[in-house]
């Protein structure tokens, strides 16, 4: 069963609908136990980092997510679900899940922000989930981007005035800055790839074992990723 991480604010409905359309069963996961039992995890997120982290901590989902990733449960992060994997977000000073070393920064572009609309995947790494996605347009809506310390993590880039990381991958984990559930045929194909990847891939723990330290809780409003 694929677990959709529900921390109370993210809009899960569109991901759920997309999986339904693919004939794939999913279940809402709002308790740590739901993530322990999951065969695969999809972590969609919208909104700002600090309230999302706060909600995850309140439900004990932060710890459960990190544990699941370290067990090698196949994982797909979407939008904020990519950004929260890093150490820290400049959006509102939030301390994040610290699964990967790196930060979340405002996109240093002279183009308009938020970056809203369809843009192209470039330099796509050879990865089962991203197979055939080079040159495909996906739907983005965000102002902040993940900046990994380790460039090996980068699985795709996209250009909005400047190039930025639009997908990362390591072990059984994939995370994308765009919204596959809103990206038409190409997006549904990516979700289908992930479902298949989760089915055949033996659990591969993240090569970045880092225990999350409980960081300072800083709240503030953001502008939606």
């Amino acid at each position, binding site marked *: 069963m694929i677990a959709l991480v529900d921390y109370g604010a993210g809009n899960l409905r*569109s991901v759920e609908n997309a999986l339904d359309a693919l004939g794939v069963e999913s279940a809402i996961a709002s308790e740590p136990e739901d993530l322990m039992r999951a065969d695969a995890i999809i972590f969609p997120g919208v909104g700002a980092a600090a309230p999302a982290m706060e909600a995850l901590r309140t439900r004990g989902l932060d710890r459960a997510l990190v544990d699941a990733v370290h067990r090698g449960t196949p994982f797909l992060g979407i939008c904020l679900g990519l950004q929260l994997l890093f150490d820290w977000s400049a959006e509102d000073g939030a301390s994040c899940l610290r699964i990967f070393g790196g930060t979340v920064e405002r996109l240093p572009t002279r183009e308009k922000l*938020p970056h809203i*609309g369809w*843009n192209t995947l470039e330099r796509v790494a050879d990865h089962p989930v991203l197979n055939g996605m080079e040159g495909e347009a996906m739907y983005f809506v965000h102002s902040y981007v993940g900046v990994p310390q380790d460039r090996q993590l980068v699985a795709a880039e996209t*250009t909005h005035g400047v190039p930025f990381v639009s997908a990362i991958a390591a072990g059984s984990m994939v995370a994308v800055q765009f*919204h596959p559930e809103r990206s038409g045929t190409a997006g549904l194909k990516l979700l289908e790839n992930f479902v298949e990847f989760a089915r055949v891939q033996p659990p591969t723990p993240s090569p970045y074992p880092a225990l999350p330290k409980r960081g300072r809780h800083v709240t503030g409003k953001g*502008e939606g*990723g």
Partner: protein
Amino acid sequence: MLPARGKVDREQRVLFKRIIPCLDVAGGRVVKGTHFRELRDQGDPVAMARTYSEQGADELVFLDIDAAPQQRATLIEVVERTAREVFIPFTVGGGIRDVDEINTLLRAGADKVSIQTAAVQRPDLITEGARLFGSQCIVVAIDAKREADDRWQVYTHGGRQPSGLDAIEWARAAQRRGGGEILLTSIDADGTRAGYDLALTRAVAQAVQIPVIASGGAGHPRDLAAVLTEGRADAALAASIFHDGAYPLRQTKQYLKDHGVPVR
């Protein structure tokens, strides 16, 4: 099936301009009429949304044009069905007054809501919506009418009531309050099919950092090309040229591509 692709061209490394069909909905059907008169049935909104999505629409907008409270349930049912069948972003607008209504529509599956009259009457609605749901789902709709050469006034209540607000100032205020996008309609151009108001669109697009969706006046694909280049719009919304089959969406996007406008 996805076609095999080569490397990404330099020209492709940009955010594409969005083409957005607009569906006016009343009583659960897509209708078209002039200023709320002679409404003509155009079809089932979900079926039309699906068709436009297959033809390459980048987003969709549903405008609830009767916005009567008793019809709200019908609209929500349309939103839920669309969300189950269509996998591109869509915005819902028309008569939204408070954050509860925003919440209901987003939960039903809308990606964004567009607010207009209520935002003029109570600008805090933009701030509250952005804080609760994120700027990315708050579209501020502005209906503007030309007053002088470089001045446009904001109208509310379906373009009938002047607000006293300057359109460019209001667009800036909407951005400051957390609006994620501006849906800008020229009352003068709307329904004329004589092209978008390029001066208005350019003035607003240059005044704000957030994306501007141009609306009102599309009669030919060249009008979309003009507003997306000269008009500096980030997206172009149109209804009748797509609905009546004069310029199907696919053909329109091909025209734009052929004329150097970056579209998907």
